[in-house]
């Protein structure tokens, strides 16, 4: 068991918690937060791998930076949508948003 394994284990646990949150939470704010958790788990995995694998340093860090920027944009837009939805429906329960069905 090298050190990378523990880092990746932590990342995996974080990701799983996030995934569980996305799938199971009703509150849309919590879903968005869980999504952030998943993204950060990926960031952690990337940065850790970059640190331990020779030749992958630059790329790992670079992608992590990209993800942070995109996550920020995503949260901004996501929350804007949540607010817009809240104004219309007076609720943030994600399972009530089911207009788009066949």
């Amino acid at each position, binding site marked *: 068991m090298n050190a990378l394994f523990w880092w990746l284990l932590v990342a995996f646990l974080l990701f799983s918690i996030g*995934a569980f949150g*996305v*799938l*199971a939470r009703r509150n849309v704010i919590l*879903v968005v937060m869980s999504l952030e958790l998943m993204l950060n788990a990926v960031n952690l995995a990337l940065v850790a791998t970059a640190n331990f694998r020779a030749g992958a340093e630059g790329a790992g860090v670079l992608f992590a930076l990209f993800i942070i920027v995109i996550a920020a944009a995503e949260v901004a837009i996501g929350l804007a949508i949540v607010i817009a939805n809240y104004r219309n429906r007076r609720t943030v329960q*994600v*399972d009530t*948003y*089911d*207009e*788009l*069905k*066949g």
Partner: protein
Amino acid sequence: MEGTAYLQIAVALITLLPLLGFIVTLLFGKRMGRQAHIFPVAMVTVTAALSIYGFVWAFGHRDETFVWNAFDWITAGQFHVPWGYQVDTLTGIMLLVVGIIGCVVHYYSIGYMHGDEGYYRFFAYLNLFMFAMFVLILADSYLLLFLGWEGVGLCSYLLIAFWFRKKSASQAGKKAFIVNRIGDFGFTLAMFLIFVVTGTLEFTGVFAAAEKGDISAGITTWICLLLLTGALGKSAQFPLHVWLPDAMEGPTPVSALIHAATMVNAGVYMVARSYPLFVQSETAMTVVMAVGIFTAILASYIAITQNDIKKVIAYSTISSLGFMFVALGAGAWVAGIFYLFAHGFFKGLLFLCSGSVIHAMGGEQDMRKMGGLRTKIPVTFWTMLVGALSMVGMIPFAGFWAKDEIVGATFIAGEYVVWVVAMVTVLLTAIYMGRLIFMTFWGETRADAEVQAHIHESPPSMTVPLVILAVPAALLGLVVGLPPEGGWIHGFLEPVFYHPHHAEFRLLGEGGALMLASLLTVIVGLLIAWWLYVRQTEVPARIADRVPWAYRASLNKVYLDDIYAVVPVGATLGFAQWLWDVVDVKVIDGVVNGVAWLWGRIGDGLRPIQTGRVQSYALYMFGGMVVLVAVFAWVWGS
């Protein structure tokens, strides 16, 4: 060939002038109003003069055939047909018949159609007809002949249905065209077969091949029978004759021109033209004769009870055409064309006279409401009498000489059964023509008082044409047919029918005896008619009561129309209805819509998966990822 440059111009103009007349009248005729006839009649007059010129040329060059290929009509791969004209003596005779009668009928129509709301339309159609008819007789190939053939069919359709606001007229026009199309089906296949075996459709090429024996006997028979099918339609022979009586719905000048003197002869002309093919097939000749004689007697049998004056003449036309086919089938080619020649004049005359009678009676066509017109419309009476006597074959009128040659030819050819039937037909012809004349012109007038008051002789524009046509109807036989079997017309047509049926006519021999027999038959027939319809007018009704089935069969045209309504027409419509209702709507479209329905149901089945909730979609994605990872792990791991 000196002088062909003029002939070339004449031939071109003969076809182009009536066409020009048609186009001009169609475009501007309405504005011309009552003067609409001037241009088309002028065109036809010039054309008649030119066609006489064509005849004169043929007269002067009877051993030559003038062929002029105007331009390449159809060239596609191996198939090649020019647009070409041909003039020989047979064409010359036809030019004379069509040109003169066509011209006379145009003049007659000025008076007859006066005041009709479709005045200009009528003349336009007549001109178009002249164009098509001239193309038909001048064509130098089967395909161009077919163009004229269908063209006259079109005009016949238009003119029969001229008064299209009458249901019977529009029905009759349609019937005429479709029945003719059935014949043309055979004609088309015949052309295919001819082209396949000879590689050409031009008469000279086809006949050269036939002479050389390039066409096997079986194929020749097929070609002839298929051509005959076409001729049966156009010349109204059994079983395709049913359209002609109905065609009497058209204006009477049309009946005279198209359905008596010219178009219906096209079938006879075509068979005569194809003579080098027919002479090589015994079977085909026999069929031609059998069809002809059967039609002749059938039509006479029906004619005897008809009460419509035009229908009687129509059936007599069918019967006469039957005689022409008998002549062709017996190998008496010249006699057939001679009869066609004479028939054109006297039958045209009869129709125009009947038109004059109808005109005098204020549109009445039922002979039961006529009678006693002899003194009231004398010109019509005398000319019609000439026509009728010519028709029954009374000496010395034109019909006698021609008909006698045909009847004689059957006897000399050894076809005694045909001869006997022909004699019976001659007898019946005399009876029904006598009936027509006596019912119309003798006895008391049976019309309403109001109609009687208006009975008047037709205007000169109508009576002059009658007199003009009466001359050849009376004298043509004496001029061209004497002596029998050796007259002028025989010499004239010899170059076309170059191994003629040689029968030396001897007055004090077989020929004279046959002539006497048929003459006696005619006189007996006329006497019977006189006795039945002038002396003992109650006898016909008693005869009808005695043999009601025979009377009703004749009156109902042997029920052929009723049979046709069921077998070909009804069956086709029923089948078509079934194809539409069941095959198209239920089976084919059913499958199409069924497939669509099936996909719809599959979609319905899958619909619950689409909950619209983000989290359930995320779950599917997650599940999908897990599966993918597992698969990849399995693939790479192993």
